[in-house]
């Protein structure tokens, strides 16, 4: 699905990613964990082509994408739910849901209505609040909206940046369960999380980042018991 090899990225002259490789297959959930400033967000922004690549290659769906414009990457099915939700506050919940899907050429009106119905079933609270401005939602509701908005774009790969940040534990758990379901349904999911333990419990595979490099990798359950994990987090 996505395969990135040897990614180097510099911002303002300093190296932020130093040779990171990552791949996610359809139907699997890969978690990227690490402390603040490890380069996790930069990795996602690079994969969605918001940041220029210093060196390395990114292939998505058999096509090299690292020189593509970000909006075309998004339309091709690589969907990135950014940190902080970024729902558009002065659009209603329903307008937020539709805006991404409306950019997809060849998606019929009825297909869009079906996706909308599917998202309302996934998160019923969004249906109840569909006419409300997105800015008036609670943090948890905004996160649901951000995920649903991404799913409206028919992703082949869904990348999420800290979806549980600032949420009540119960809501965060619910969101991780939804992501696990999505992966089970065949979507490739790449999850960036600081809350390492809960991410590892749902992930098939995980990468631990530190200082812009991957320092540890393995299956979610293996890493949970790996003494190196604590070390890489606490230095």
């Amino acid at each position: 699905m996505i395969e990135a090899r040897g990614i180097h990225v510099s911002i303002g002259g300093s190296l932020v990613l130093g040779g990171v490789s990552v791949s996610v297959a359809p139907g699997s959930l890969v978690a990227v964990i690490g402390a603040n400033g490890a380069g996790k967000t930069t990795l996602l922004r690079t994969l969605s082509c918001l940041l220029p690549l210093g060196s390395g290659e990114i292939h998505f769906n058999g096509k090299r994408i690292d020189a593509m414009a970000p909006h075309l990457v998004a339309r091709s099915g690589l969907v990135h739910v950014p940190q902080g939700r970024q729902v558009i506050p002065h659009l209603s919940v329903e307008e937020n849901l539709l805006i991404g899907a409306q950019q997809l050429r060849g998606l019929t009106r009825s297909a869009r209505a079906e996706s909308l119905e599917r998202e309302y079933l996934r998160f019923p609270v969004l249906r109840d609040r569909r006419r409300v401005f997105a800015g008036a939602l609670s943090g948890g509701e905004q996160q649901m909206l951000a995920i649903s908005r991404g799913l409206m774009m028919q992703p082949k790969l869904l990348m999420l940046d800290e979806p549980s940040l600032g949420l009540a534990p119960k809501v965060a758990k619910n969101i991780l369960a939804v992501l696990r379901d999505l992966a089970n349904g065949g979507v490739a999911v790449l999850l960036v999380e600081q809350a390492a333990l809960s991410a590892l419990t749902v992930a098939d595979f995980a990468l631990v980042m530190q200082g812009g490099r991957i320092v540890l990798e393995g299956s979610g359950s293996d890493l949970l018991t790996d003494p190196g994990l604590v070390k890489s987090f606490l230095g």
Partner: protein
Amino acid sequence: MIATDLVQVLLSGIALGSVYTLLAMGLFLTYATSRALNFGQGDFLALAAFLGMAGMLAGMPLIAVVIGVAICMAALGMLIERFAVRRIISRSKAGAAHLGWILSTLGFGMMLQNVIALAWGKSRYYSPPLFSSGEKQLVSLFGAGVFLEELAIGAAALVLAGTMYVLLYRSDWGRRVAAVSFDRHTAMLLGIDVKRTVMWSYVVMALLTGAAGLLVGPLSSIQSHMGMLFLLKAFAAISIGGFTNPAGLLIGGIAFGVIESLSNYVDSTFGDLYPFIIVLLFLIVRPMGLFGERKTDVR
């Protein structure tokens, strides 16, 4: 003031004010998508007014004049975005002050102003009426005789402003503008072609300004350097309404037009001065304008 005069003065104010509203909407739109304003927008207006006058005097039908001016304006909108704005805003780092566009758009406007002066000189012109047989053709409104031309111009500008409102709030394009205004990167992640959206916002700005220029011709005399004063009045409209939503711009524009019209009725020598004084006083009381919020409504 007698009642008949009052109706006429109010109507003149509404007609002029709705022209300011169109200009203000152009400023608002480009600011929303690019965080930059076209300081040459007044000169766009002047050029449209002169082109309109030339077309009408050449005996072209109104519809042909409108289409011709629209094509010129759309092309200018694309040009100014491409060469005076895009490179400057894309090269600036996030958070860094980037005000180069003030100079580049102002310079673009200066060029237009000089082109007008070369073609028509610097004298004052009177544009032929667009909608009526003569400037002084009267119709009856609330029992008072008012100029048909002003009535039609006010109505046309209001219809345009209303159309803009619908476009911004009800169309896919309006939602794209909202997304780009909120955050360019988020918009890109939603599959929105940000460059295209910004370019179209400049085209729409230029079309609105072109319409304002066409409509203002028969309302007041036109001159090559008239642009800056109109731009200033559009800013005054924005200051009253608040730079936050298009409805505020409409109220701000009309309010300024009516105050200006009343002030010119009372004192024709310094009539232009009082509205600005009133706006300054108003801003002391309400610095954010009538509908001002701390955060901009993204549309």
